[in-house]
């Protein structure tokens, strides 16, 4: 996992946040995914294709009371899960101008 890559949430899903939870519906699988914490929801918000994993890690460490090493491990695991489920991709941050509105 390249920590200089940007995290881009899929445009093929619909998502809404209520409180600390984010609900994601993936129509291709007719599946509901739930991000059941404020940290996960914050990562999802930052997954706009313009924030690198390194920047997201820094934001999480800044906004939540967590050890950087713990945040890195949890972030890595969570991002792997998003990638595995097809809910997000890692893209080169150099592609920023091509992305337009990441929604």
């Amino acid at each position, binding site marked *: 996992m390249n920590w200089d890559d940007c995290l881009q949430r899929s445009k*093929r*899903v*619909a998502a*809404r946040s*209520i*409180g600390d939870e984010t*609900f994601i*519906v993936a*129509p291709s699988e007719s599946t509901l995914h739930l991000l059941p914490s404020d940290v996960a929801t914050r990562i999802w918000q930052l997954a706009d294709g313009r924030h690198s994993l390194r920047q997201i890690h820094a934001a999480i460490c800044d906004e939540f009371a967590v050890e950087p090493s713990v945040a890195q491990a949890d972030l890595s695991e969570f991002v792997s899960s998003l990638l595995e489920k097809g809910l997000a991709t890692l893209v080169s941050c150099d592609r920023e101008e091509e992305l337009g509105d990441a929604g």
Partner: protein
Amino acid sequence: MPSGNPRRRIDGRRLIPALGSRDDGSASGTAPLLPTTIEIARVAVRIAIDDAALARDVAARYSRFLRARDPDLTLSLRVRASDSPPQDDVVTVEPRDAGTYRLARSDFDCDLDVPRGRASATVARSIYTVDSLLRVAFTLILAPQQGVLLHSSGLVQDGRAYIFYGPSGAGKTTTASRGGSARLLSDEVVAVRRDGGSYRAFGTPFAGDFGVSGEDVSAPIAGLMRLGRPPGPALSRQSPSAAVRSLLRCVLYFGGSEQDADLLLSTCIDLEAAIPCHDLRLRLERPLWEQLHELG
């Protein structure tokens, strides 16, 4: 010289229709299509079938929901030559242009065009196939109306609707059976759609294991209740996120476009904001309505 027989009027129709002409805009003229119009949640669907036996089954199955009005959508069904039973329950919904879909399962294939109000399908000769197809189609037809089908039972009492949902085995059918003089929306699938400033529940003919059709009745929703078992408070309000999560888990959803998914999320969130969602732990020894009195 005129003959002794009166000449029959044609009334503007062609004397000899072209072979294979389409008399309803969708179906081939090679076989008669026997139409039945049903209405669920204010959406009228004209079902035209090229098989008399299946047409009779459809008319009987949906007898409580028959209508004599112009349809919002015409569904033309052609029965497949082979009567092979469903191989699996996997439904695929392939979105195409806006509001158009390809619906498929082993026992049906359907092209659905919601904006133009038409659909055509090939189906196995089975009322269960038609019923399944209608359930899938109605999830997509109702979506633009901020409507959903909820895997739930429901009752109407004193002009207000009470919806009971939860996983299989939670007691939806049992709860519905304890309604006394209340009218049955359904013991399996209740339709919900936005109605002015709130939401309204509608009965459906979609039956559960016992094959009991709901009644053609609707009412403003008094409460949405997720069924659970004691111990615990008899009735407790769910948090907004818990309510949305539980609603999403009981909504009939087979896929569609990203816009449909977005609409589904919006509707569930809006529904939760408009209607209180409770956890209900029924005590079997107490009358149902006594336990619901807190809802007012």
